């Protein structure tokens, strides 16, 4: 049987053309500037048209638009593979795997179980004081200015430093991680060479840390992974350890950066919600879930392996699937007033961390970081607003969040 994927070039011009979209329903493109800026009306239009839409871009890609269609695909590992988790212009042979996110059953479960114990809610409680301190160290640096770009000065650094702390590597190496992530998740959609270089640089960096720990074991997540044993009692290969480290870094940083940033953006432009959260801190747990639902940062991907039907729509192999948890979370059939932020929403089965076996391994970490980052910001800076002289800029592609977030506070609020 021929593999339809093989017919697709594994390299392409650095910047292939992405002509502007005129017909979202038959030609959608999640890298279009209008999608980046405000995807919500686009998703509503697509959902009204069909539970699954298709584009010929990216060598063929489906988009499930309803919660139900997203849920069906997430649970169907027989017809949909996770070997490629980003929809890109090229589909090179699958190298640089990052288990378990790029794993399918049966390899998935053992790879995931290794990572789960360090990320339980109890484990996160131990990390919380350090994250609270990180937030305050960052706020100390700009609070006297009465203004800041919160994406560059605050939200960006919290997850990087937290994950560095967990991995046992210097928090100051965070800028390096941010560069790699930008190259892999944003520039890499259209430029394969940049992506490969970033992956190699990251592998070199972590190989050094693995070698150090072979000489002197340390009490951190890298050592935990190196000490892990598979079901045959064998240690993981260096490649597996590297892949999991790459995953933790890529998946754990700009995702939470985006979630914290989008939350502050919402509170900056919605004084009633900001005042309510300051006055009623007991609302934080439902507020965090609601902000996760309304501004879910992460869109994943699947690859269609076998022909099937999703929500009545035929789905054919050779195509990718843009698995939009953010669009599912705006489906009014699942969430009443889906387009409104309701800080005390009682029933909220949002899919921000995915559904099924690939539930985000870091969801407890992300929730803790979001909660602490918003709490500390509101405690120190209860009154703030968007700077009308500045511009909010959103990231393109797979992870959506503010990359520039100019805020005014203190005397300028």
């Amino acid at each position, binding site marked *: 049987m021929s593999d339809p994927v093989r017919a697709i070039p594994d390299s392409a011009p650095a910047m292939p053309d992405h002509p502007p979209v005129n017909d979202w329903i038959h030609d959608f493109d999640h890298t279009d500037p209008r999608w980046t800026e405000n995807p919500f009306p686009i998703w509503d239009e697509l959902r009204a048209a069909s539970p699954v839409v298709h584009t010929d871009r990216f060598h063929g890609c489906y988009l499930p638009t309803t*919660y*139900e269609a997203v849920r069906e695909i997430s649970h169907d590992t027989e017809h949909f593979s996770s070997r490629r988790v980003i929809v890109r212009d090229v589909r090179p042979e699958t190298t640089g795997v990052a288990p378990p996110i790029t794993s399918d059953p049966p390899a998935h479960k053992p790879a995931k*179980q290794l990572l*789960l*114990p360090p*990320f*339980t*809610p*109890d484990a996160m409680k131990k990390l919380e004081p350090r994250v609270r301190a990180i937030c305050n160290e960052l706020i100390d640096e700009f609070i006297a200015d009465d203004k800041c770009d919160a994406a560059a000065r605050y939200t960006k650094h919290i997850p990087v430093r937290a994950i560095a702390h967990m991995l046992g590597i210097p928090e100051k190496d965070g800028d390096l991680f941010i560069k790699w992530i930008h190259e892999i998740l944003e520039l890499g959609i259209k430029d394969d060479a940049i992506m490969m270089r970033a992956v190699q640089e990251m592998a070199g960096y972590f190989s050094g840390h693995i070698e150090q720990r072979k000489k002197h074991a340390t009490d951190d997540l890298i050592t935990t992974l190196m000490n892990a044993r598979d079901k045959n009692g064998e240690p993981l290969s260096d490649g597996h350890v590297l892949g999991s480290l790459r995953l933790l870094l890529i998946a754990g940083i700009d995702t939470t950066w985006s979630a914290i940033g989008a939350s502050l953006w919402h509170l900056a432009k919605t004084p009633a919600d900001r005042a309510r959260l300051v006055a009623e801190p007991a609302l934080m*747990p439902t507020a965090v*879930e609601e902000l996760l639902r309304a501004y879910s940062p992460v869109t994943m991907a699947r690859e269609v392996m076998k022909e099937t039907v999703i929500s009545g729509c035929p789905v054919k192999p050779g195509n990718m699937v843009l698995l939009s948890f953010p669009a599912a979370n705006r489906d009014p*059939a*699942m969430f*009443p007033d889906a387009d409104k932020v309701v800080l005390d929403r*009682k*029933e*909220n*089965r*949002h*899919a921000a*961390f995915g*559904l*099924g*076996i690939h*539930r985000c391994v870091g*969801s*407890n970490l992300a929730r803790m970081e979001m909660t602490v980052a918003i709490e500390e910001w509101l405690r120190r800076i209860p009154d703030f607003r968007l700077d009308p002289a500045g511009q909010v800029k959103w990231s393109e592609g797979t992870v959506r969040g503010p990359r520039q977030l100019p805020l005014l506070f203190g005397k300028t609020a």
Partner: protein
Amino acid sequence: MRAISATTEERLLMPGKLKIRVDQEKCQGHARCKSLAPELFNLDEFGNAHEIGDGSVPKGLEDKAWLAKANCPEFAIDVTEQ
């Protein structure tokens, strides 16, 4: 699928003593139940949820049982009348 109205309906239909059960095939460790109803659920070393004891819901905690069910993204929690 629509949990919202169904849950309200179920709640009215089951005024008696409740019992909860987490389907281990469905639970993926989102941990929403533990956060909403820590009196009723425990997490194991992988972060997956289990009902505490035999799953009997002590009087006064019925609303938390329904809330946990209504917030489980995997539809893994069953609430039944004993």
